[in-house]
């Protein structure tokens, strides 16, 4: 496997005056309570993980869990108190100001919860802003920005001001702006949290469509567990600055690591999250019916078909090879069983 794009090694962020000395004295054993008694607040506590190229890591947690702080450490909007962060092998915390600006101008893009558009610039000017900051001349930057306007479907509104747009449209501008320099790494800080539920769903679909096309390395922050399940390749669940569990959506739903994570998974409709692959038997029995389903299907989409079968159903991969089988009872168990209430 190639070098991870983002790599964190026991990152700490502690707010307060003696944060650094206290962290040293704690010797890697940070307890939020003792820190708080000494006037320090622990934002991120010993976060270690990697994000590989083209992967989408969703960091999920309730407010105050340290998820935004973690993102700001990785984008170095705040300096981490301890630990190491590598961006494509470069030690982020050792970069000087110029190198950091260079990195941001070329490699990083970020989308904000409150959109953070510049009120005095039009849509297209807002999108061209990072390009112009880089030193690209007005004409070319506007031309490039126009491509972005089309990408996010705002053509015809390029000369509007942010104040004239709806929340969803404003966030489209925010997304286009963060993509304007064609960054490899894309940070999204609760991009859809300020939007109405309907618009939010629309934007999520749009976002997935974009990601399919662009294949960026993404860190996506959200407080919405459903959103995390819908979008993520992997999910990191944070509580009080600690990453409680980092795994694929399916594994989190099937094997929650802690009580805290399990609470989130309780209400989740599994058939919407799990793939056939996650629940199939990898052994094949003789008694197999005619129906074949792909292992990458979400259960919900094929459940009805499978349940009408009396026999076990074959599971195939992309090359039409049979890789396993699934029994209708298995589907029923997955959908209705395994929950606290039913056990």
């Amino acid at each position, binding site marked *: 496997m190639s070098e991870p794009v983002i790599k964190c090694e026991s990152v700490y962020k502690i707010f307060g005056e003696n944060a650094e000395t206290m962290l040293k004295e704690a010797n890697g054993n940070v307890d939020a309570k003792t820190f708080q008694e000494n006037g320090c607040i622990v934002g991120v506590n010993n976060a270690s993980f990697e994000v590989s190229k083209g992967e989408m890591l969703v960091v999920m947690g309730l407010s105050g869990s340290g998820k935004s702080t973690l993102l700001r450490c990785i984008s170095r909007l705040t300096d981490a108190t301890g630990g190491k962060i590598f961006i494509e092998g470069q030690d982020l915390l050792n970069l000087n100001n110029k190198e950091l600006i260079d990195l*941001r101008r070329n490699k990083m893009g970020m989308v904000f*919860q409150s959109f953070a558009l510049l009120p*005095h610039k039009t849509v297209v000017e807002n999108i061209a802003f990072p390009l112009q900051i880089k030193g690209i001349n007005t004409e070319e930057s506007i031309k490039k920005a126009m491509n972005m306007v089309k990408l996010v479907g705002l053509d015809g509104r390029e000369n509007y001001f942010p104040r004239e747009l709806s929340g969803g449209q404003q966030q489209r501008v925010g997304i286009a702006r963060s993509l304007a320099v064609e960054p490899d790494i894309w940070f999204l800080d609760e991009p859809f949290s300020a939007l109405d539920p309907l618009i939010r769903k629309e934007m999520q679909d749009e976002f997935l469509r974009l990601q399919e096309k662009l294949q960026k390395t993404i860190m996506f922050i959200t407080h919405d567990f459903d959103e995390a399940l819908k979008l993520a390749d992997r999910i990191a669940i944070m509580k009080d600055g600690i990453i409680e569990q980092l795994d694929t959506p399916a594994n989190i739903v099937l094997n929650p690591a802690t009580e805290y994570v399990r609470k989130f998974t309780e209400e989740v409709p599994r058939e919407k999250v799990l793939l056939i692959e996650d629940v199939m038997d990898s052994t094949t029995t003789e008694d197999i019916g005619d129906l074949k389903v792909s292992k990458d299907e979400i259960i919900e989409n094929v459940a009805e078909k499978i349940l009408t079968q009396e026999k076990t159903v074959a599971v195939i991969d992309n090359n039409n090879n049979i890789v396993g089988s699934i029994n209708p009872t298995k589907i029923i168990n997955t959908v209705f069983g395994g929950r606290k209430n039913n056990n």
Partner: protein
Amino acid sequence: MELFKKYPKLFQWIFLLIVFFALCFAIDVPETYKFIRGQAEFVKDPNQSTFVFLGKEVRYYAFDVFWRLPPLLGWLPIWINDSLFFLMNDWMPMEFWNEDTQEYKTRPLVLQITRNLTAFMTFLIELIREILLGGLETIVAFTSWDWIDANPWAELPGLPWTIVAAGSAILAYKLGGRGLAIFAGLAMTYISIFGQWKPSMQTLSFILVAAPLSFIFGLSLGIAAFKSKRVEKALYPILLVMQTMPQYAVLVPALVLFGVGDHAAVIITMIVAVPPMILLTLLGLRAVPPEVIEAGRMSGCNNWQLMFKVLIPTARRDILIGVNQVIMVCFSMAVISAFIGAKGLGFNLLLALNQLNIGLALEAGLCISLIAILLDKMSLAWANKQVDYFGNLNFFQRNKNSLFFGLIMIVGIALAYFGSIYFKEYNYLFEVPHNKGISTADFWNKGVDWIFDTFFVYIKAFNTWLIVEVLQPMRALYLRMPAIATIVLVVGAGYLIGGIRSALVVCGLTLFIALSPWWDRALVTTYMATFGVIVSCIIGFTVGTLCFQNKHSTKFMLNVCDIFQTFPSFVYLIPVMMLFGITDTSVLIAVIVYATIPATRYTIEGLRSVPSGLHDAATMSGVTKFQRLFKIEFPLAFPHMMLGLNQTIVFALFMVIIGAFIGTEDLGQYILKALSDKKGAGIGLTLGICVAFIGLIFDNLIRTWVDKRKKHLGID
């Protein structure tokens, strides 16, 4: 005992008052004590005591320490004065090249710097003045008199008034639409037709120099304070004092440093106008959402780009409100700085007031108020204007205003040219000369005379009653307070409101005044301000509450407040002098009118700030209008109204000091005297600080109380 436990604060206050009155009764008035009129303490008198400190001799009338503290700070004004003179005349003499005599000359460094500054300011003012009114100085500065003689074509006249009027209308149209444009055009035409063109343009040129310079300095200092906590901490006390410092007082040291004239006026205006600009810049930059800053950083902005491409454009509105404030300060200074020789409307106004020619004063005052309102509205329109997009317009649409102005230029010049042929004596299409315009002065003067003749008895009776029955007893009461009792009262109040910290601050401020030679005068200033504030608050509170009952009257009243606030403070003296002549009553009425503005405004704003949800909740629990007002709106609006009280005090103090122009016996009288005194710089500055400190004592107490109360109520 129950009661005591329930209201501990109340009993603490009662205890404080008991101590205060006990002290007042315990300490007798010394037999030798009398209020010193005129400048008696500067006259040598064998009854005076003396002491010498830092080589300065201080003379004073000694009393019991409990009655009046000795002026231990009496050396301060003399010392300030001597230091200033030393700086100007003896410190760091250096060789400087002299253009005129073509040789090196020895001059003290500070003198050289101030002279260069002066020359620079004069150049700027002359430049604008000559564009508006014509003249040669600027062209000569780049060439020489000989060159002008050889090239007579360079003697360009100023712009005809038609062009300036139309130009301001176009600018007003661009900023604020048709209504503002019509107002601009009419105001300028009025000024021209009534023969006030020249002084108006002089005032305008003064403002066009002072305002942009103040803006630049204020903006840069505001940015510096935003960037560095240390700069902010260093600036903070200065900003605080400057907010309550009467503008008069700053004039005196400036007189010493920069001499007399427009240039000194510009510099002094900058000193007064920069602090509000700094505050608003800081406020605006602080209000930029952190995510916008982060977005800028993530776009790869360096610090410079972040400041000028992200922060300042986002904070645009607050910064432009700062510009508006700067312009307003410039106008009030345009009048006040006439005392140190600034030309223009202010000078005419002062002259007319001095000669008691109310009609002329009224005309000048009207003009200056018109220009002030115009510039105020224009800068506000600019601040509230949203940026428009011009990218997809063609050349003509984009530049239509400048093209139109070019057209006006041609038409105006043509008109002026025809005018020079048509009018034999004066070219009215170029400039209506002062005194040749329509004058209403006689009409007003006759009106004043008529009012005086008709209502003299009543006015006189009212005047006598007020002075004999109210003002003099009140003044006597204030002067009867022993110094110790006053200090105990003020410090005790500080302790009860804000704890030990507030008590210490207030104690320091009070001691400074008590140890200065002008404690009695400060008491008189306080008495006048108190009287003004009490009446203003009663009026402002009542009017504000009444107007708040109806949406239209609320809006109307706020507009009235806006317009009244735009008038330079001196203008208020005109009508009161018209009616009450030269008495304390005039000053107090001016104080009351002036100070009622913030009292009314803050009452309305306070009531308006009560959340509408609470309003609805109250209505749904079935309260009557009065219950709602007294149980919900007043308690919640009270902190904001107290801030209004704070402003009312500052306004009242300003006006009391300006009232010295009419003749009062308070600190202001001495400040005015210091203006004409060669060695007055130290005295003027110290007096100014005394006034500022009176304001700051109240400011500290009120603000501390408001902050606590707001925290208690959970509003911000």
